[in-house]
């Protein structure tokens, strides 16, 4: 073949023959669409934590991850120092108590995953490869959901190991704690998937990172405020639906419904609503969010 020959043919120059090996053909396998999807998913997951990027891009995700873990670690340490003391945290209330950190992570990192490709017009390159537009959208959404899952899972694992280590009877404690595995894995899933859908739906609509971050924070703040005001001041029907306005209340309600343990004195336990209502609304929110991301990437010019 001419290309193979060209690759090793000497190029004449003043100093003699130079063997130019700078470019050669490629005859190996071409992995296609699925491999591209998996690659994009992993690359985006790494990007969500600033891995392989400059130090500056690591500050926010690592800082928030640290803040997410610290309370669980401190509580564990106190239990170790003062045996018998009761930790304020458990698998049920931890993510609810630290919901602000999850919200900030979505607000900061969802735009990180999608805004840059739009602003720098890298999408033209992605879409000129085997990857379909829906593949891109789903890989990015999946990466965000996975990042949130790990962020939420880490402190629950800290509680898990701390509980085992501080107990006097370690084998029994391991047995006890393994029974909590559905909560340890389930709660992060219940939080991660809908939050990623919501965050990506908002972030994918603007190439401006600051706007996206602002919009996501605004949605969380406004919905929490409106929900709170309605619950306090509203009467009758209005205060009945108040808990459904704040996405985090929806998530806690869904967790409560699926994994069965309500947090005392939380909006969900105070609400006069059947638990499946929270689950159904969370599912609707998630589906709408993912549909919005898919719709956006089907329409976007590349």
């Amino acid at each position, binding site marked *: 073949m001419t290309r193979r020959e*060209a690759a090793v043919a000497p190029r004449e120059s003043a100093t003699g023959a130079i063997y130019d090996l700078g*470019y050669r053909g490629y005859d190996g396998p*071409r992995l296609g669409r699925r491999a591209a999807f998996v690659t994009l998913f992993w690359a985006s997951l790494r990007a969500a934590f600033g891995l392989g990027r400059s130090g500056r891009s690591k500050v926010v995700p690592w800082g928030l991850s640290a803040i997410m873990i610290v309370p669980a670690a401190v509580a564990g340490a106190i239990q170790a120092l003062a045996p018998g003391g009761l930790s304020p945290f458990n698998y049920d209330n931890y993510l609810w108590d630290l919901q602000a950190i999850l919200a900030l992570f979505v607000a900061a990192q969802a735009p990180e995953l999608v805004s840059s490709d739009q602003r720098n*017009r890298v999408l*033209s*390159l992605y879409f*000129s*490869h*085997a990857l379909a537009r829906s593949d891109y959208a789903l890989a990015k959404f999946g990466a965000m959901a996975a990042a949130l899952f790990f962020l939420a899972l880490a402190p629950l694992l800290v509680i898990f190991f701390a509980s085992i280590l501080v107990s006097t009877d370690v084998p029994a404690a391991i047995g006890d704690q393994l029974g909590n595995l559905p909560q340890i894995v389930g709660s992060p899933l219940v939080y991660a998937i809908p939050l990623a859908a919501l965050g990506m739906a908002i972030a994918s609509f603007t190439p401006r990172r600051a706007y996206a971050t602002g919009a996501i924070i605004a949605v969380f703040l406004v919905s929490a405020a409106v929900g709170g005001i309605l619950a306090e001041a509203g009467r009758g029907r209005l205060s009945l639906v108040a808990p459904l306005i704040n996405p985090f209340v929806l998530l806690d309600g869904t967790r409560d419904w699926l994994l069965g343990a309500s947090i005392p004195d939380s909006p969900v336990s105070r609400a006069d609503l059947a638990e499946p209502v929270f689950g159904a609304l969370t599912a609707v929110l998630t589906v709408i969010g993912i549909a919005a991301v898919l719709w956006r990437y089907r329409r976007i010019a590349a």
Partner: protein
Amino acid sequence: MPLISTQSLTKRYGSSVTALDALTLEVQPGIIGLVGANGAGKSTLLKILLGLLKPTSGSATVMEMDVATRGPEIRQYVGYLPEHDCLPPDVSATDFVSHMGRMAGLPPAAARERTAEVLRHVGLYEERYRPIGGYSTGMKQRVKLAQAIVHDPKLLLLDEPTNGLDPAGRDEMLDLVHRTGTEFGIATVVASHLLGEIERVCTFLLAIDAGKLLQSAPIASFVERTGTLGVEVEDGADALAARLVAAGLTARADGRSVLVDCPDERPYDIVRDVIDEMGLSLTRLEQRRHRLEDLFRAEGRTDDAA
């Protein structure tokens, strides 16, 4: 096997803008120059061939695969260099090109190896580990070319590859394009509004204007037809033009210059002899650079003659 063929390909944006107007063409492999003014439909055509845009009507095939139905398959074997910026500033060239190689289906090890090779091929060395944001325009264009060839495409679509480059950078980029196309046998389409560039690197010319095919011919035949000799004299350009016309040439005065059509080499001798006979002071004798306008003028004349 035709490399690219289109049948009455039409693309309208909204109801008023027609980017491609029933374009029908067929080209064989080679280095193909796609020339046209800004807005002639060059980028639109490339994007349709890639499947980035859907045509309003008509059809197109690339390597005998229909763009409407086999887009993903086509894209595996096509490299694309967009006209606009398309590089993330916070990633190094190595990481970016390797990532794009993986997107194109290369296994991880092959992607790394080929990234090193193509970056060396385009002339990026130590700087390839630094974030792209700090690169000059010339270096960015090289990265764009590198990501387009990292997966060893069978067809390379380059949209204004010399965009924003200084003259030296243009020469280097054109040389790279020429080498990539000829030595490695990758069929290449170079879209440009500068005919001079097309002429230097391409073997075949497609000229489009307002979405219509203006010309489709090997570059050699085209150059012959519009070759123009510029003769600049100190005084008496008009008289010279008259004498040259009398000698049977097509010539016209243009300020201090006389423009002589050169379909072959005969006019050179005549011009030399006439200037000598008239005793004029010759200040400049040059092969005029072909510009897009020449092409359109030449086309117009052919139409008149027909």
